[in-house]
């Protein structure tokens, strides 16, 4: 088995697992269910623990916790894949809110740039106290169930087959320093790479992936690592 040295270098910078925030993020890390044919699983997760009102550093939203009638704590999981089936570079989010007893009372997740509620209290999809969510085949947005909330199956099939790679290298404002390397040539290389990985989704969500302590790093660490990771992937594509 080959060693991904870039990933190893990221995890080498991880703080001691005895850190309070790291332990909290590990204890409440979601379990993700993927399509049995899903070609891309998460590589690393950047966590941020909020105990008072603040803006997210990785998603355009604010987090309201710590005041009366608000959750005591929110944990943001910024989940990194290298690849989405349509483009290179993929970051999705899950937010878990806790009460004073540090029990999960709510959850939200990202859905193609928007925020969706995953349930509250008794309606939360939990398994042994951990949030369990379904991931859209190829595209990785999250839903609490598969009965319609994952979207139109035909659309998903179209994206995972015909549209594979059509988005090229995706750049968000978080990684603006990559704009100078964004060219039609890179987009074509990404397209070629992902066309070879186009797949027909089974809609059988049998790949279970629990976010574990080993892949959790503070968001700032992950954010610093991603541009070099992408630059290296682009070099390899060439």
């Amino acid at each position, binding site marked *: 088995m080959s060693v991904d040295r870039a990933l190893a270098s990221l995890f080498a910078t991880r703080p001691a697992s005895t850190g309070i925030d790291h332990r909290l993020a590990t204890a409440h890390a979601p379990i993700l269910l993927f399509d049995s044919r899903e070609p891309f699983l998460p590589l690393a997760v950047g966590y941020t623990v909020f105990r008072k009102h603040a803006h997210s550093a990785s998603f355009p939203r604010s987090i309201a916790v710590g005041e009366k009638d608000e959750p005591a704590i929110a944990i943001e999981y910024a989940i990194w894949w290298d690849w989405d089936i349509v483009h290179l570079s993929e970051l999705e989010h899950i937010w878990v809110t806790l009460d004073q007893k540090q029990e999960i009372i709510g959850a939200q997740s990202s859905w193609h740039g928007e925020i969706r509620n995953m349930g509250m209290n008794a309606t939360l999809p939990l398994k042994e106290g951990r949030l369990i969510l379904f991931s859209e085949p190829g595209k990785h947005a999250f839903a609490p169930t598969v009965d319609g909330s994952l979207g139109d199956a035909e659309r998903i099939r179209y994206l995972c087959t015909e549209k594979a790679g059509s988005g090229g*290298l995706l750049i968000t404002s978080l990684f603006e320093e990559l704009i100078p390397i964004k060219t039609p040539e890179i987009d074509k290389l990404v397209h070629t790479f992902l066309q070879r990985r186009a797949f027909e989704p089974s809609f059988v969500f049998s790949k279970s992936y629990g976010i574990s302590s080993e892949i959790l790093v503070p968001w700032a660490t992950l954010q610093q690592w991603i541009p070099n990771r992408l630059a290296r992937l682009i070099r390899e594509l060439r």
Partner: protein
Amino acid sequence: MEIILKGLENPRGVAVSMTGELYVAEAGTGLHLLDPTKWDGKLTKFTDLNGDRDFEDEAEAERWFSHFTTYNGFSAYGTGRDEVSGPSDLLLHNDGRLFLSVDDGGLSNSLALHVISPDGRIGLTLADRNNMNGIAFDRDQQKIFAVESGLNMLVEISFTGEFRDIVEFPLLDSGQQAVPAGLAVDPRTGDLFVALFSGYLFDEQASSLDDIISFVEGDAKIVRVDPDTGDTTDEIIGLTTAVDVAIDEAGNIYVVEMTTTPTKLLPTQFDLYDPQAPPVHGGYLRFSGRVTLYPADGCPPRVLADGLDAPTNITIGDDGALYISVGQGTPGRPIPGPDGITQIRGEILRITNYLSEDAVETEQ
């Protein structure tokens, strides 16, 4: 006419959504540094949250990108003119996607035509050819036309990045380059209207900057181009530094001229960023730009706004208003103004009710 946005750094293309949001590309300060994270070309979404018809209240500006390339032709190529480039034009598709052209002057391989998703992520990059100053959709929004001022070309670009050259513009009457700067599609016929800015008039015997004329007054024009054949005919002649053009559903044509008169070029050692620098024009007479309406019914042209400081772009919003970007040049640089010394200020102007005869003056 009202100022709806100020404090901008070289505003260029403006796109207006059907629900009134404004997207603005800014070419930045022109200070081109080695570190791309210091570049300051921008793309911002503005929303009038409180309905007061401006976009300057808290949280009304949502900065999508703030590090696109930026450069000044004076510093990069010794043009003697204070002329900033970077993000240059912007289109909003009916499906919510934005198309942004970026000109880096060939300095950093960042020339681009980017496709940006409705939630502000850069997806495909369709092109990285010459400096694509102006871009426009065809009538069905199925492809893009672009003018490349550096190559004097008009091209067609598909949404998958295929190119087709339409026409290369010949030299103008005095022998200078055409320099296509802006364009618009006639919604009635699909023809293209292209603003030919006009380039330097070189004197082969020139021994100093003082012997170079930035442009010849009256040599700029608007031409009509058949996008299928490239056939080109003069539509409006006798213009000066025609920098952008727009046309409405009725066939009224709106022309932006950046300035009326060339001025002395800047000396090589001039410090554009010195707040104490002497107030000089910088190649173009400041506060002499104008917007003129050429009515579809053949009536005489009417000046809708004049005395503008170096306007560059015009957009017709879904609300029928005209949006004009002004303030080309190094932001904050001292310049001569109509009431004394002032500074270069990037602003967006909105002109409404302009089709009323009472609202405008007839050009003499």
